[in-house]
């Protein structure tokens, strides 16, 4: 099974507020908030780490969630955000010129 790699779009803005990550796409002004688990995936989206590894290290270990369920939820989350141009997805590592870190 091919790996999935994810990275954040350069068109987005993001900031933590009260435990939720606010995300806005400058292209169409869509605005999202991410919960704690989604934020952990989001912050680990560096284009180099496979999604499976992100789910294992950032979700299962930190939030005590079943691995299969976490993987399914993560794929759905990634699919939704990629449709809005918030995340870029590839089956190859994604080179990034910069890896912004939202605080």
């Amino acid at each position, binding site marked *: 099974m091919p790996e999935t790699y994810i990275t954040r779009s350069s068109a987005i803005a993001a*900031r933590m507020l009260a435990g939720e990550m606010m995300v806005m796409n400058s292209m169409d002004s869509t605005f999202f908030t991410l919960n704690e688990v989604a934020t952990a995936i989001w912050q680990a989206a560096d284009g180099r780490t496979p999604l499976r590894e992100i789910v294992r290290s950032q979700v299962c270990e930190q939030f005590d969630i079943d691995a299969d369920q976490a993987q399914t939820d993560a794929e759905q989350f990634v699919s939704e955000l990629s449709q809005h141009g918030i995340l870029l997805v590839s089956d190859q590592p994604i080179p990034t010129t910069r890896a912004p870190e939202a605080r």
Partner: protein
Amino acid sequence: MSLLNEMSQKAFDMGVPISVHMDVTYRCNERCVHCYLDHEDHGEMTTAEIKNVLDQLAEAGVFFLTFSGGEVFLRRDFFEILEYARGLMFNVKIKTNAVMIREDEARRIRDLGVDTIQISVYSHRPEVHDAITKLPGSFVRTIKAIRFMRDQGLKVTIANVLMTWNLHDSDGLQKLAGEVGVHYTLDPTITPKMDGDTSILSLRIAGEELPEVFRNPALVPNLEEFCAPPKPVSEDDLEGYSCSAGHSFCYISPYGDVFPCVQFPLPTGNIRQQKFMDIWNHSPELKEVRSIKAKDLTTCSSCSHVSSCTRCPGLAYMEGSMRGPSSADCEKSYYRTGIPTANMLRKAGQGPVGSLVQIRPLAALA
């Protein structure tokens, strides 16, 4: 309530500065007749200082960041600042006159993921716009730049300041914005100069002219609701605050001074001497601004407009008291609804002051 409004309200309630307006320079290549700024450079923050401030703002939770001036592109390091800000993942808006923007600059702005560009245009007639900016050819250059940015897919808004010089040009400019395919906003507010000089207030359009703006369906989509008489004042209204200035919003000058708002020149600290969060959390002035509820306002607390008025605490401060009325907003409330404000009635009772027509005995005129 939209998700965005919900998060903005959360920031307000928690005292998080979710939105900051930062002027990176007061220098400008235009000399607009209504401008409140001193364009001399009295020691702008360096590139390194601004980057340090941006680090602090990101740490403080700032999400919406507006870069303005002066003319931002007069700073040779502006793209470096912009790139740094986007690297910190701010949602960035730029206010500019755009005369220095060509295709290359428009492309770079788009590549950096800037959210919105707001551009000052004062008329659809080049001679009127250029007379206001005092820069010959500025209209042609600005409109050309707007087209470059539109072609890059950027969200562009034409912002018009309505004054005596361009009073009847709003419709023409709005039509031009539509033809070019960009948004249009209008503001009839002229503020005193930073040094307190009020001479430019003579450019304000007369109150009698405001209904032309307020009752224009092309500018006000929900006309009936907008011009409706104010609803009865409730206890909740009196427990409310004027605006987000000092609560979840602040302004930073090119010299590092922090104010509650760009229209509220109450010094609260300087970022060259203190950390931003020290100013935000501990400034006595900001604490005072945050403490003022509608029920604490000297005249406005008894005004029927208190819940719907656009009362600006900064304009009130410039008029004498941050707890007092802002006469310009009183006029707007009156001419929007036809119902006089408490401040107007108070002034009318005091004698020949204020905007209401008064009838006095002939003897008093002698």
